């Protein structure tokens, strides 16, 4: 073969200067990251702007300290709660065998379909002083107000419970993936060194799943921080309340943006702290020959495990769904009609599907870009993209609105200059701006999921493929994408459900006459018609549920072998 000059060996006309840094894929990834990170960056940029000190000093002097305290407690509660429930559920279902495990494995994902604000509505309706439960209690025992103690739903504790009930799913999904992808060999090594299965959980599985758990908790916290609907309904005033107050009540958008930027800074700081505390340690596994062997939990232990998995499912899904059904049945007024429902569901599904697909593609691109990049710049950019999730929806909506309308107006101007007629706003009026807004907000979810798994693929896999002649782009398609199939599905699923539930951006960015299940729920709920809002809420849950079930079973199947 030596005598045949290989055609491939023809030297490239232009020397590729250090292909690692300027691979086109990496450039593309950087461009996308910059684009999606733009609104977040513009929010952050407000920090540089001199604030109207009036608003600041007023807020700082009156309500801000309380808001901050509430926020900290809320974060601590939701963080600890989601971590405990999510990791516990993932650990039980991946590492053990007990009655109903197969069912729980996918059913535990269901609470994700339940929007936190809907959860807040139904639990409040059911549990508050005037709700059916307390009323029944009072009537049965002839109690008066103050005669008995009952936990107040609309409180900090209640808000934490609501968030944990639905957001633990993030931790569950990511931790579960981490446990499954973890080389069984490491656990075996631990057991050889005298660790019981429980001890190996705390000393091996958990530390190794740390990036995944951290990612899951980060998602849960960011969603908590960005939430306004639930906390406002519960009258738990958080930092986000402060942002809305500065903006809407005090009419100071700059101060609001500055507050939002502070929030982001806080989140970024947390993330950086978590990363740096990992030090030089790695969490990837080289040989993943054997998956973990499931320990069998028999007798009482088995039933306890089943009970442990039932509780979050009950809290986050079964109970609220039943309450919603109860509300919907009790609603005497005429409903919306099936046709209208079908239309709303279709709109929601289109948006969610579209966004999920794009988000997964972009997340894969960005995560892979960061893997390719030898310098930390790409990773920093990805973190910036990730911050979008922590920005309250209305703030991000406006953050998106500004660049998009500017671009739109510029385009219109160009069009007019060239063709003489005014086309109006091309992007703002369509779905694309909305999808962009969703991406800015939810790409983080997909990115965290994909990154957590990509990190676990040994770099030798890339190198082996490259030595077999594949370019980086094709490696992504032929090696990483299939290896990440489970994570990609998970990511798509999370984004899909998140978009189904999203409200503030959908409300303000949508095209004319474009209603979704979420906007419909809002319209009714804002009018304090909870009973009527139950139906579209149920529909959100239902429409979100179908792919959820299909996909989570798919994920369970893809992990076999």
């Amino acid at each position: 073969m030596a005598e045949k000059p290989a055609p491939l060996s023809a030297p490239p006309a232009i020397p590729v200067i250090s292909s690692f840094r300027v691979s086109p894929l990496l450039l593309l990834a950087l461009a996308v990251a910059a684009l999606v990170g733009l609104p977040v960056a513009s929010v952050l940029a407000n920090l540089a702007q001199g604030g109207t000190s009036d608003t600041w000093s007023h807020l700082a002097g009156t309500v801000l300290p309380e808001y901050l305290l509430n926020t900290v407690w809320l974060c601590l509660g939701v963080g600890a709660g989601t971590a405990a429930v999510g990791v516990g559920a993932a650990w039980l279902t991946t590492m053990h065998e007990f009655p109903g495990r197969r069912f729980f494995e996918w059913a535990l994902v269901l609470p994700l379909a339940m929007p936190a604000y809907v959860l807040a509505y139904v639990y409040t309706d059911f549990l508050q002083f005037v709700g059916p439960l307390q009323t029944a209690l009072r009537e049965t025992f002839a109690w008066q107000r103050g005669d008995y103690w009952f936990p107040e739903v609309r409180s900090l504790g209640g808000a934490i419970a609501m968030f944990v009930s639905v957001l633990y799913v993030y931790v569950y999904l990511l931790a579960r993936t981490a446990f499954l992808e973890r080389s069984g060999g490491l656990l075996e090594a631990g057991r050889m060194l005298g660790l019981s299965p429980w001890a190996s959980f705390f000393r091996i599985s958990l530390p190794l799943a740390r990036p995944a758990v951290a990612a899951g908790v980060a998602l849960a916290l960011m969603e908590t921080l960005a939430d306004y609907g639930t906390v406002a309904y519960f009258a738990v005033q958080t930092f986000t309340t402060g942002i809305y107050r500065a903006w809407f009540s005090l009419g100071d958008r700059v101060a609001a943006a500055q507050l939002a930027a502070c929030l982001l800074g806080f989140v970024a700081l947390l993330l950086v702290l978590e990363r740096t505390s990992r030090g030089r340690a790695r969490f990837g596994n080289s040989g993943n020959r054997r998956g973990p062997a499931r320990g069998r939990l028999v007798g009482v232990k088995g039933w306890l495990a089943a009970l442990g998995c039932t509780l979050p499912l009950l809290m986050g899904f079964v109970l609220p769904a039943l309450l919603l059904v109860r509300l919907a049945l009790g609603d005497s007024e005429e409903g919306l009609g099936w046709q209208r429902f079908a239309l709303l569901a279709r709109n929601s599904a289109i948006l969610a599907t579209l966004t999920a697909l794009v988000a997964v593609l972009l997340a894969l691109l960005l995560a892979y870009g960061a893997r390719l990049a030898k310098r930390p710049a790409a990773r920093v950019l990805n973190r910036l993209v990730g911050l979008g999730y922590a920005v309250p929806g209305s703030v991000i909506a406006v953050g998106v609105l500004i660049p998009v309308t500017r671009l739109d107006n510029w385009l219109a101007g160009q069009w007019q200059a060239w063709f003489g007629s005014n086309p109006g706003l091309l992007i703002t009026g369509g779905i694309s701006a909305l999808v962009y807004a969703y991406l800015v907000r939810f790409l983080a979810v997909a990115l965290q999921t994909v990154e957590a798994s990509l990190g676990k693929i040994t770099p030798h896999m890339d190198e082996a493929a490259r030595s077999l002649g594949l370019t980086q782009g094709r490696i992504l398609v032929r090696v990483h994408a299939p290896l990440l199939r489970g994570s990609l599905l998970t990511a798509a699923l999370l984004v899909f459900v998140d978009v189904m539930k999203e409200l503030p951006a959908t409300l303000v960015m949508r095209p004319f006459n474009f209603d979704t299940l979420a906007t419909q729920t809002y319209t009714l709920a804002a009018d304090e018609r909870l009973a009527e809002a139950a139906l579209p809420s149920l529909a959100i849950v239902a429409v979100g549920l179908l792919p959820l079930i299909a996909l989570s079973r798919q994920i369970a199947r893809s992990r076999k072998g």
Partner: protein
Amino acid sequence: MAHLELQHVVQRYPTPTGFHTVVDGISLTVPPGTIACLLGPSGCGKTTLLRCIAGFEEIAEGEIRLAGEVVSRPGFHLPPEQRRIGMVFQDYALFPHLTVAANVAFGLGDLPRAERMPRVEEMLRLVGLTGQGEKFPHELSGGQQQRVALARALAPRPRLVLLDEPFSNLDTELRERLSLEVRDILKQSGTTAILVTHDQHEAFAMADEVGVMHGGRVQQWDTPYNLYHRPANRFVADFVGQGAFLPGLVVSPTEVTVELGRLESSLPLECSALCQTCDSCPLAREGCHVDVLLRPDDVVHDDLSPVTAAVEHKAFRGAQILYTLRLDSGAQVQALVPSHHNHALGEKIGIRLDVDHVVAFKTPAATSTAPRQPASASAA
């Protein structure tokens, strides 16, 4: 008071169509303080057997006892962490999130704090990684990682150590040094050990006893000397050491003729007096055809010898060259010749036999039942 005892252990992996029996009825006994080695071709079930002993695989039949106490039998299974067995994994299985020192200290939970670090230091010194304790596994070379795995398994002073090719990624020198040192440590502490290796020299150097596995069964469990010089069957003869088979004819209870001459065996070829024909004879009797094992050192290069053979292949072995030679009949033999006798491929060189021990097996009949028992006899 045997330390490790396996009785007819069977292990099966489920397959889509049923079961794949990987360990197929293995019985063996490893006395306390003994170092045993498992040799065998790739995929013969060595790792699986170790995993059964360690407690990672449940067994389908048989029984495993450790220090007299049953640890595995169908339906009963002592969890691995309660067996006090140390294990070095083929793929190291180091904890990527812990430093080297923390990896080594991992199993030292029972030790008082003050004693932990000295023990870690001691182990690191042993494997030649002093001062590398603060590194993370991914910052080490493959061989260094393997040494950490070894140190980690030995640190808690287990009752039984299982080593799955612990030296396979080390260079010869380090490998020899380390294997001798590990042997010394094990011997000093009286620890029983089972070692899986592909390297026969290593097995011979380290082990008191060696088991040769094939197809899920132990073919022979013996001392290195016997494995080499008295292989129990054709597979062992073939697998252990080098050599080639030459067809021979039994001419008397102590004599066999082969192409290269007549071989005399002091002991009779153990033919059963009862059998009348070769076919019915479990071993070999006069007139039977046998295959005679010729080790490379049985064939001596002698320029004066009338018998010559052509050089087919040669492998440089340092002091010697291993020649593969083709006889006139077309049969092949191997010869180990000092390396200054450098002959070209195709050259014909003189050889003679210098066998002090005849190993012969009945030539397999058309029916493929290979003889299990050797016709073995020491030379006079």
